[in-house]
């Protein structure tokens, strides 16, 4: 996706929509879609990333993940599968964890985004970062920023009493058990298989026995 420095919605190129996918899928729209033109557009979005406000003018196709990595050069957030299956791109949006690859940047007007770079610094690590190091919660490290962002959000969710698939009682306070943490972290894949150490790190930060 190339850079685009135009203002507001720009009409750089007019590409006639073909009778391809769009027309075939949205059958009732077929006639109109064929007649319409496909426009390469940009749009502006204001976001706060790790405490700093940014105004970005982006190709509308830019995902939040690509905006962070390619436009703000915050490469801590990783691109794994780019389709919401691996969790390497997990960031916090207004305190809640999401997959940054499955969100358009322009949909985040006014949002407060925290990436791994905003959780801690090499000089002052977040307790979860410190615990991952202590417990050796990674091997290659590629999934680690997503694991850590996800883990921070998991503890917030447990604190707020949000139940999970393995909670025996929907109305009781969720436990800080191995089963609970594994279920809640299931959206973050680690192909090196550091799971036991990841769970140990999260358990320690949560105040349980490591």
């Amino acid at each position: 996706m190339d850079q685009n420095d135009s203002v507001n919605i720009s009409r750089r190129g007019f590409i006639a929509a073909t009778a391809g996918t769009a027309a075939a899928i949205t059958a009732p729209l077929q006639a109109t879609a064929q007649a319409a033109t496909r426009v390469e557009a940009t749009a502006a979005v204001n976001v706060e990333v790790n405490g700093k406000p940014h105004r970005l003018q982006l190709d509308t196709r830019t995902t939040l993940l690509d905006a962070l990595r390619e436009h703000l050069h915050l490469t801590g957030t990783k691109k794994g599968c780019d389709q919401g299956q691996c969790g390497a791109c997990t960031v916090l949006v207004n305190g809640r964890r999401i997959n940054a690859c499955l969100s358009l940047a322009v949909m985040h007007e006014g949002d407060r985004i925290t990436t791994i770079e905003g959780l801690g610094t090499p000089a002052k690590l977040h307790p979860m970062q410190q615990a991952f190091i202590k417990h050796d919660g990674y091997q290659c490290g590629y999934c680690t920023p997503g694991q850590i962002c996800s883990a921070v959000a998991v503890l917030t969710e447990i604190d707020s009493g949000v139940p999970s698939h393995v909670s025996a009682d929907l109305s009781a306070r969720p436990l800080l058990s191995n089963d609970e943490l594994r279920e809640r972290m299931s959206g973050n894949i680690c192909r090196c298989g550091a799971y036991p150490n990841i769970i140990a790190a999260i358990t320690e930060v949560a105040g349980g026995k490591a």
Partner: protein
Amino acid sequence: MKSFTYERAASPAEAVQALRRTPGARFIAGGTNLLDLMKLEIEAPLHLVDVNGIGLDRIEPTLDGGLRIGALVRNSDLAADPRVRRDYAVLSRALLAGASGQLRNKASTAGNLLQRTRCPYFYDTAQPCNKRQPGSGCGALQGFNRPHAVIGASEACIATHPSDMAVAMRVLDASVETVRPNGTERTIPIADFYRLPGRTPHVDTNLEQGELITAVTLPRPVGGVQAYHKVRDRASYAFALISVATIVQPDGSGRVAVGGIAHMPWRVAAADAALPDGAGAAAARLLAGAQPTAQNAFKLPLVERTLATLLSDARKVAS
């Protein structure tokens, strides 16, 4: 991804009008399914109308003692709502069995209902698929069809509906509230919301083009022991091979709906009526007319055995 123009709507009326006036436009809410499909160019809208700013993000009591769930309530918030956990436990359980924590934070109630099948032939643009490209054929019929439908399928399509939430909505007799492109509102019972594939598998629901879901309403609580059991290839974060939702009353009467076996959440009145006679009787009625393939015939006994487990659990809770 194909290029598209983008706008943010400020109200449901504005969103519906924006879609109506722009050719090739689509609504986008959570986007967790639409964006995935856009990256593969299975969906290629010319214009996106972002509905995240139109309100509809609250869960409110209705006058008749039920709940009205705004279309944009996120799956995680719906599952955690104290009223849902207490009175509609089957819905919380179904939501928590679906996707991952990250996806549930983003996915909306309406978007969950409208998610497309996870049939691998639908996703693979090198393969024929009547749902993706009408008339191109079905790769699954003679191909890999272990996760596919065992009932209600057609010669054009044997895809299943992937939603867990929709199975709970079906067993709870939910209704879908919408605004049509002409501005009028209507309420569609969940039983009439989805379609069987027939010869038009590319049409998943009975919504009109450009119709916007505004809410899903639940009738007043029916009590009973409510459960949702999902059987899948992994313990977490996988789509269902089959799933069973039950509401069982102390006298043994109840309701059952099944996911992962058809193009829609599957519920049969005669099966509900047969629940007091046990899982075998109810499953026989649920699955009457089933035409499984050699690869997915295992789903028939799996439905019966899962139902038997849930009925047995319900008896234990009741006693």
